């Protein structure tokens, strides 16, 4: 019985230990994932927002994963509320203007050639490195 127990339990223990070692050895870098959802919704600029129309899955507390090209999860968490940004620089002299909804979440990621973002099980979105405002991976939806 003890042999049987050992045969059943040891492989999973070893797998877990090896996986933990693998993760521990891999250097990670703190960066920000930024997603601009171009839903062109009419709202005040600079207020909390969520994606609208086909992008309603982009919202506060929506689960997300950052994956590599092989689909392996590198980071996961929940989105913070989006922030509305005006689509035009012109002053339209009204309080509610055409806006996009931008999300930003901090992540720690191991180095990979490419990254993709999966939000609440929806199809992945390609992320592009952009260090113009600090280390970041950015996406524009729709691209």
């Amino acid at each position, binding site marked *: *019985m*003890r042999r049987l*127990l050992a045969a059943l339990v040891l492989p999973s223990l070893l797998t877990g230990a090896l996986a933990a070692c693998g993760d521990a050895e891999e250097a990670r870098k703190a960066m920000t994932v930024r997603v601009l959802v171009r*839903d062109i*919704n*009419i*709202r*005040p600029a600079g*207020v*909390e*927002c*969520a*994606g*609208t*129309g086909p992008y*309603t*899955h982009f*919202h*506060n*507390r*929506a689960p997300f994963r950052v994956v590599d090209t092989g689909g392996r999860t590198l980071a996961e968490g929940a989105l913070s*509320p989006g922030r509305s940004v005006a689509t035009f620089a012109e002053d339209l002299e009204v309080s*509610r203007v055409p806006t996009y909804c931008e999300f930003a979440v901090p992540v720690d990621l191991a180095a990979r050639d490419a990254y993709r973002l999966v939000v609440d099980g929806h199809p992945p979105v390609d992320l592009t490195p952009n260090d113009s405002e600090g280390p970041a991976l950015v996406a524009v939806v729709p691209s």
Partner: protein
Amino acid sequence: MTRGYAVRLAAIALAAALAATGCSGGDEAPAPPVAGGAAALPGPAPAGLGLRPAPSGAPGAPAVTGALTDGSPVALADLWADRPVVLVFFTSWCTLCADRQAALSELARRHRDEVVLVGVVTEDRPEDVQRYLREHRVGYPVVLDADGAIWRSYAVREPPAVVVVAKGGALLRGWPGGVDAPTLDAELRKLVLPA
């Protein structure tokens, strides 16, 4: 492994499982009613309820049907047949909704039976909605708009939003982005004539 050791191990595992599920061996308290369900529907409108007539030419509100949080069917037209209805479009993850909810819940209690508030929620999980309704003491019925059809029929694109419908179904007023309770209260006082 001896038989006695195996039995002790099984007993420990069972005890741990029971502790984890919070089972107390048949001494369970009755489950609370589902918040936002049929029990939250209003009673009859007060006899002699005086209402200001809706302006002529006001468009009709979409007379949609849906299911409350407990699965009970509801038709908005049945609710506005004898009193005004306020539709509150919200989600549990909307922080502005949460910020304003306590005052809206209190407003609903104050106007209970004269005006019906109805929550409409989409893009959310039922368990999160229940947590939100209990945390913010929401006492009015709530429709789970799973596919967002009711939101779309009222052209609501994101939470919060509030819509006022007159008795009979005339669409009176809408606030995309929501409205604070004092402003909504003032609007309702224009509708309901003093007794």
